[in-house]
């Protein structure tokens, strides 16, 4: 069941789908706001920010990618996009536009709920020593959700932040895509590795001085990613 009072904004132009998904999500315990196009969605989001945004990529008027980018400009809210196919460039384009995860139509609302819950999971900091982490000019304070680079605060999305903290819990350890997919997105072995790759890429543009020559989050060829000590 979803957390009480957690608000989900669904952007979908097909009224029947919108209504059915709303009913199903409400059964799961979420509060649902609806928008039938991008303009309405952005207006609604400005008036009353949601905790999760669900965007169909195929929208009349401004498309889902653009809605995604607009929301991302002002907010770190988890965004799930709905695509037609898993094997198109749409997925990568959507992730690069700022989406945290994706689903392909038709999906089961229960699956959507599971995705939402995974994205809303809070960062676990059981280890008190991990309350303040520093790597060179990079500073991470998990409990406060703050990341500073050379003393200046960096704005990360919730998912980027959780990904970074996951890497930072065991600095120097190599995390495979599969492990990161499980810990950050709640997927198992069969999750889509592109989620990890695109998020790592986005993370690098924010915390690295030169994203092409990463000093903090480095690729270990054939194995995965690690946070350089």
């Amino acid at each position, binding site marked *: 069941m979803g957390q009480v009072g957690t608000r989900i904004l669904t952007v979908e132009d*097909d009224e*029947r*789908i919108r209504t*059915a*998904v709303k*009913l*199903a999500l409400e*059964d799961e315990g979420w509060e649902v706001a609806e928008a039938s196009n991008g303009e309405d969605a952005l207006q609604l989001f400005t008036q009353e920010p949601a905790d999760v945004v669900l965007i169909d990529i195929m929208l009349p008027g401004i498309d889902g990618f653009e809605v995604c980018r607009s929301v991302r400009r002002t907010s770190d809210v988890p965004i799930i996009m709905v695509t*037609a*196919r*898993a*094997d*198109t460039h749409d997925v*990568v384009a959507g992730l690069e536009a700022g989406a945290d995860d994706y689903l392909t*139509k*038709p*999906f*089961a*609302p*229960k699956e959507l709920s599971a995705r939402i819950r995974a994205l809303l999971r809070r960062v676990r900091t059981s280890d008190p020593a991990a309350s303040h982490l520093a790597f060179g000019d990079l500073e991470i304070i998990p409990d406060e959700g703050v990341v500073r680079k050379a003393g200046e605060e960096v704005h990360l999305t919730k998912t980027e932040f959780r990904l970074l903290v996951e890497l930072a819990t065991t600095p120097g350890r190599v995390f495979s*895509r599969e492990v990161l997919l499980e810990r950050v997105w709640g997927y*198992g*072995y*069969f999750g*889509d*590795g*592109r989620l990890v*790759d*695109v998020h*790592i*890429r986005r993370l690098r543009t924010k915390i690295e001085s030169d994203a092409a020559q990463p000093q903090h989050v480095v*690729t*270990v*060829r*054939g*194995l*995965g*990613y690690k946070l350089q000590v």
Partner: protein
Amino acid sequence: MFPLKTPGLGTRISLAFALGGLLLSTFLAFATQTLTREVLLRQRENAALSLALGNAQLAQSQITDDTEAEGVDDILSALQSSSSRPLVQLNGVWQGDGSGAFTQEDVPVELLTLVASGQPGRIRIALNDQLTLIHGIPLPEDNADYFEAASLAETESNLRSLQLVLIGAALTSTLLAALLGKYASRRMLEPLNEVSDAAVAIAGGRLDTRLDLQVAPELTSLANSFNDMAGALETRIDRDARFASEVSHELRSPLMTLAASVEVLENNLDQMPDRAATAVELLSSDVTRFQTLVQDLLEISRFDAGDAVLELEPVGIGEFVRQVARRSTESELATSIAPTAEEAIVDVDKRRLAQVMANLIENARKYGGGATRIDVFATADTATIAVEDAGPGVPLAEREVIFDRFSRGSAGGSRGIDTGVGLGLSLVDEHVRLHNGRVWVEDRPDGLSGARFVVELPVSDGEADGSWDEEGI
């Protein structure tokens, strides 16, 4: 009745060239031979005539009324040469050169009569098997007739040599013509081979194949027609493929509504009367089935439209299969992962390979009483995954067709509650082929009843790494 095998076009062209060459060279040889023969013989005859006239004159001047027979012999002996033999009838008495090679019996009667009437003449006869020219010249002053036999043997032999040369030339030119024919036909058939190759390519699915026959302007119209046909075919197939894709696409929206609505209904099952609840359960399971069908159709139509994109990443095949088994609901499923497979890295599209495995396990569940075992092993070049069941196995005759679309084989003939639509194995085939791999079904190696589906994939050469992402790991 066996129809005779029609010789190929190339052979026929070659033969026609050879025949033409033979006819032409034979005609030329024959003409050359005839003309040369006439010219040579005439020359020889003219020479013989002058000689005969000279000799006759000489004989006439030397023979006098009182010349004895021996004297005539001597005169004739003096006139004799390698190519001419004289003979004289003097006062009704024949005198020869004494060699006996040319006697009065040899002189044809016509010539004798002619010369007797005071007319000179000549005649060609075969003397001692040699063509010989006999001149007859009356010598009225001596009351004598002079005959001279001139052998044409040398000319004949020259002509025979010429004949041999000509026959040789004719044969050589026939052979050359045949070779030329072969070459010409090959050149001519070259564009046809291109056409054939292009047709094979199109039949093989490369619909964008087009002909470029610039070498032969005559064939431009053929190339144009061919390309038009290929274009029309491509458009048509493309349209059909898009149609299937669009139809499946359009089905997704209502399916989405159905899936969400059914879920709402299911959430409220306990508040429904039994009959309604049963109906909802039926509805729910068929919506799921419908959903699978549409997803499979979409996947297949993407293959048809050439839209299928592989998202490869290096995957340890042993770990992959372990994960597949872990996710599977089959309780009896045992995995046997060879040490070679633990190290084998294969570039795969995980989503697709997961679907391959899921479909094979599902297929075993439907028709083979459930998968019993997954074998994984690898060589330096290939990684192999085999899924076994304990069902009736697949009859030899069906081992190919079960991978066809909407084919359920004899085992799937009855439409039970839980049979599929027959897209599962064809999707397996398409996915595996997209990976440059192969899939087939065989008997279980342990001799027990059951089918063994084998997927063979090429092992990574270590080059590829997440082709969809330049930062792939």
